[in-house]
């Protein structure tokens, strides 16, 4: 890349995606190939990998060593934790949340999926759609990922057979028809090991007319993610310079969680319900004519009213729900099970309240999608629906309408551990 070519660098957009696969279905090889072929692996990293592979007695350079950053991971040959990887092509910048396929599977997949707009679901062509595949798809859907790529891997081991591929596509579609949020599913037959349809189109599968995986990632349209309808600014911090030049300045700093704000807009401050107007939307560089999610801004208001962290500035024509009773889908992350009547700290946007579990509605069997009612507790990595009551009202939208104002985490007050991820329904 010459200097002149980097001129477009600032204008590239960003695609965050998550990868999930079962043990040995070639996920590390696939990521390794994407990074290697896009020249994102450096020589010193490659040398370090070669050296480790030699020490371990591996036959080939083990690309998994690139993602397994912790000593325990390399020793055990497994991935323990989500790892984030970065690469760019001249068209787009990518952040991969690489989630392990086995240990703590649900917890890591949910974490990786929470910030992703696309999921790559890897299937071993010899095994077809298995339980893990269904779990991956279910979690992607639950976290409202709208775009999925189903990469049918190891096609080389099946002589690039079209009929096998078609059968897998049909089986997956059959399952995914019950998942409402996954609106765009793209199927690609690949061989990560040989590089077929990963970066370049393969000549081995003339029957496949679609793009390679990288071509698809570079061009897929994911622009509709942010909510630009419901104006929401959760107040994060109040800026009061207390200097001579800015003596009376009071700015409300935060990251816009939805909609568009402009100077002069009528707004409402929750929970007080005060109505006022936006004076200015400021940043360090200049005042803005309009601001939208996910920009971090500082807003000043016409009236001198009491606004603090945890409050929310919204527009009066479509305010969020304001309620102490919340229905949510949750994923449980703790070894200590969740039971009814238990109390936790609930963190939602910039607000922290206490919450009590009023009722356990049902647990989801994520292999069959069946709802199982009457379960007394949720254990580690289980997913289900609960009813909560909070110590003061939340200002929220349904998760399916807004990922920021519809999500929360539960925190154990004794240990301070994050024990659950929640999505408001």
């Amino acid at each position: 890349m010459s200097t002149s070519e980097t001129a477009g660098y600032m204008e590239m957009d960003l695609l965050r995606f998550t990868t999930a696969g079962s043990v040995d279905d070639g996920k590390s090889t696939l990521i390794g190939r994407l990074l290697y072929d896009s020249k994102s692996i450096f020589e010193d990293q490659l040398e370090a990998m070669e050296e480790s592979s030699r020490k371990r007695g591996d036959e080939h350079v083990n690309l998994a060593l690139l993602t397994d950053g912790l000593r325990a991971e390399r020793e055990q040959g497994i991935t323990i934790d989500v790892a984030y990887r970065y690469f760019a092509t001249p068209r787009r910048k990518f952040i991969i949340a690489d989630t392990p396929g086995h240990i703590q599977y649900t917890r890591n997949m949910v974490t990786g999926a929470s910030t992703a707009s696309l999921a790559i679901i890897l299937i071993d062509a010899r095994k077809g759609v298995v339980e893990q595949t269904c779990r991956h798809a279910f979690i992607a859907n639950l976290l409202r990922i709208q775009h999925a790529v189903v990469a049918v891997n190891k096609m080389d081991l099946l002589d690039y057979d079209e009929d096998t591929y078609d059968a897998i596509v049909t089986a997956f579609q059959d399952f995914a028809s019950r998942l409402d949020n996954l609106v765009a599913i793209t199927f690609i037959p690949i061989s990560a090991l040989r590089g077929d349809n990963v970066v370049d189109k393969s000549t081995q599968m003339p029957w496949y007319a679609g793009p390679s995986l990288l071509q698809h990632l570079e061009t897929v349209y994911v622009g509709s993610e942010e909510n630009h309808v419901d104006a929401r600014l959760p107040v994060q911090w109040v800026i009061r310079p207390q200097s001579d030049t800015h003596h009376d300045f009071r700015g409300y700093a935060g990251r816009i969680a939805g909609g568009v704000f402009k100077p002069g807009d009528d707004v409402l401050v929750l929970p007080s319900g005060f109505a006022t107007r936006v004076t200015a939307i400021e940043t360090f560089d200049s005042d803005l004519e309009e601001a939208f999610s996910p920009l971090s801004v500082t807003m000043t208001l016409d009236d001198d009213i009491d606004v603090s962290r945890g409050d929310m500035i919204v527009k009066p024509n479509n305010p969020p729900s304001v309620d102490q009773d919340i229905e949510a889908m949750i994923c449980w992350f703790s070894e200590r099970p969740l039971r009814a009547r238990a109390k936790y700290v609930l963190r939602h946007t910039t607000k922290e309240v206490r919450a009590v579990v009023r009722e356990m509605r049902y647990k989801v069997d994520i292999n069959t999608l069946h709802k199982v009612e009457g379960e007394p507790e949720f254990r580690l990595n289980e997913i289900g629906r609960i009813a909560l009551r909070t110590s003061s009202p939340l200002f929220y939208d349904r998760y399916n309408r807004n990922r920021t104002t519809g999500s929360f985490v539960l925190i154990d007050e004794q240990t301070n551990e994050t024990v659950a991820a929640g999505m408001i329904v």
Partner: protein
Amino acid sequence: MLSYKLNHVRQLESESIFVLRETAAQFDRPALLFSGGKDSIVMAHLARKAFHPARIPFMLLHVDTGHNFPETIEFRDRFIAAIGARLIVAHVQDSIDAGRVVEETGPNASRNKLQTVTLLDALEKHQFDAALGGGRRDEEKARAKERFFSHRNDFGEWDPKAQRPELWNLFNGRHHHGEHFRIFPLSNWTEMDVWQYIKREAIDLPSLYFSHERVVVDRHGSLLAVSDVVRPQAGETSENRTVRFRTIGDMTCTGGVDSVATSLDDIIAEVAAARETERGTRSDDKRSESAMEDRKKEGYF
């Protein structure tokens, strides 16, 4: 509606500002670790943006090994004065004098590892409950596993196997007395992002980053600057070369690279063509396969 889209650099900037503001809101006494290197300079720049027109609500903390490039110290003092921030300097020499650490000996002696003790002592002495660092996940494989909000126990240690899951933009900084957090607002930035941003924002940097003539010695492939603390050993010869530094740290472990890059555009072109990571010039990372992980577990940056 289609125009409401942020390019990736503005998304990164917005995310970092969010993290900096969360730090101010969730902690009683946060400190910003400032080394005079480009990442900490960008982090301090973002902190100015986050709290404008007020001043940065953090103290800046510099852990000084005593083996810094003079250019770094000169830049640091100028920078602090310009932004009106308050700086605390913790000296590794003081830790040595107090017998808290023992200086390494031998040809490859470095104070890099000793910094951890000085850092943890400084955090405890000033009762800092959060320390903002400029670390990025793309730098190194152990750092790829870091959270934005990374918990440290009473001993300042990192337990990578028991990290809190971090979902959406919900950061859990709750901690017991005596524990602290390391916070990494630049987690999602790459080396290229940092350089492009420095150019866009016209951020001033220490002269070390730009090509210059310097007397160096080639030690295990690292071009170390010859100085009071790095002298040629038997079998080594010093030579005058045109070099620059891709990272700035302790003189004993930070190597330069041959380069004629005198402008930001030159550097960006060089970074784009680079076949080695920027930490490839850091002998502290090369001590073992898990050198970074081991140091981080003890409480390193």
